[in-house]
């Protein structure tokens, strides 16, 4: 028989305040999780990857903050909300994941493609801005070439940019990057 390893969770990895932070941010029933695994069993991402929703919830409850927030698994959730619908304890599982994602981004864990989309939003007011090919298509289709969104209204775009500055989104996305570069 192969060696059996004993995996010990060391106290320096445990952040006892972590779960309260998650609760305070809105996942108020998370402590009632009974590890039934319903969330994992209905998860379309878990079907094809090693991502286990139940495991994330368990680790969060144990206070393994760094492990949860640094895990790329956190980003495999499509936010399909199936687990949230089915959890027998009525835990807002998807919301809990989103809350922990916010914390991860705050700590500087962000996937490159996500940072790119965020920058587009900062620049143009849209995560998917209008490109030339689509503008051409709009013309051919006979609908307003530039949609009447912030693309057509500069003052509106200024407001949107100001909002993102005030919520510190700009700092969050661009600030971290300049730190990375240094």
């Amino acid at each position, binding site marked *: 028989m192969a060696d059996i390893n004993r995996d010990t969770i060391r106290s320096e990895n445990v952040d006892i305040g972590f779960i309260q932070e998650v609760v305070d941010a809105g996942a108020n029933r998370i402590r009632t999780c009974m590890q039934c695994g319903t969330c994992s069993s209905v998860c379309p991402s878990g079907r094809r990857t090693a991502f286990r929703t139940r495991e994330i919830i368990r680790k969060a409850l144990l206070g393994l903050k760094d492990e949860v927030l640094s895990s790329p698994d956190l980003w495999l959730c499509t936010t399909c909300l199936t687990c949230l619908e089915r959890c027998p304890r009525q835990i807002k599982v998807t919301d809990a994941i989103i809350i922990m994602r916010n914390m991860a981004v705050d700590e500087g864990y962000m996937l490159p493609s996500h940072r790119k989309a965020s920058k587009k939003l900062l620049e143009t007011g*849209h*995560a998917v801005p209008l490109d030339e090919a*689509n503008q051409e298509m709009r013309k051919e289709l006979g*609908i307003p070439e530039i949609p*009447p969104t912030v693309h057509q209204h500069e003052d509106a775009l200024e407001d*949107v940019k100001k909002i993102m500055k005030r919520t510190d989104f700009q700092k969050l996305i661009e600030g971290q990057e300049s730190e990375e570069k240094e």
Partner: protein
Amino acid sequence: MPNRFPNVEKSIRTVLPKLGIELEELEGASCCPAPGVIRSFDEPTWLALSTRNLALAEQTGHDLVTGCNGCYGTFKEALAELEQHPERLDEVKKVFRGMGIDFEGNVAAKHIIEVINELGLEEVKNAVKRSLEGIKVAAHYGCHLLKPSKNRPWEKTQRHTFLDELIEVTGAEPVKYRDKDMCCGAGGGVRGSQVVVSVDMAKEKIDNMLAAEADCVVNVCSFCHLQFEVSQAQLNKELEEKKYKLPVLYYTQLLGLAMGLEPEKLGLNKHVVNTQPLIDKILG
């Protein structure tokens, strides 16, 4: 929608007025922003930007209507958050200071398919001029249209049928297929960052639709639409053969065809997956 699928937008702009639904532009709107992406990065930014869009709609005195499940999810959830936690509205108002953006919360967010569904099946049926008999359709509802069910207007909380019924009145046959309620795989930033996992989910869905002998898939979301269109092209490239060619239609495109409208008026000539075989089958 406007920046991704002008062709779908075209069909919406063409079909809705013919059903007696007038659309007014939401001038100066920004990205909704997406419930699974931007909300995952920074929830307060998500709430502030979505509230701004809702405020613009409120000023027009009409409900906000969207053709995308993602936007729909954002607006429904933002409205619920503001209603249940008035202090969040105060926070957002602080962000808005000096911009002249008022928000009272007197606005509803609706999905285009919800507005069509409210017309009633009879009314939609009356608009049908060319029956789509013989066409098999795989309906894909999409996650944020239906869930969380506590904050959605549908009669049922699962095993929904309204879209199938709206397909049925066109004369087409909505088919049953395996794991119909499964996610398309695009949301939550997965499409953007883990494309292999994302495409694999789309593949499973499309395989199941093909197994049910569907002639096309009908969806009501710009992100699901993108997922089914682009994933098929990606899969064909990997396989080096054209196995995946299931046309992907938005509901107003299918309905438009049944109303006897020209395919070009519905933007059907601008798809990634060729829609011509389907059109030939309908017209032929």
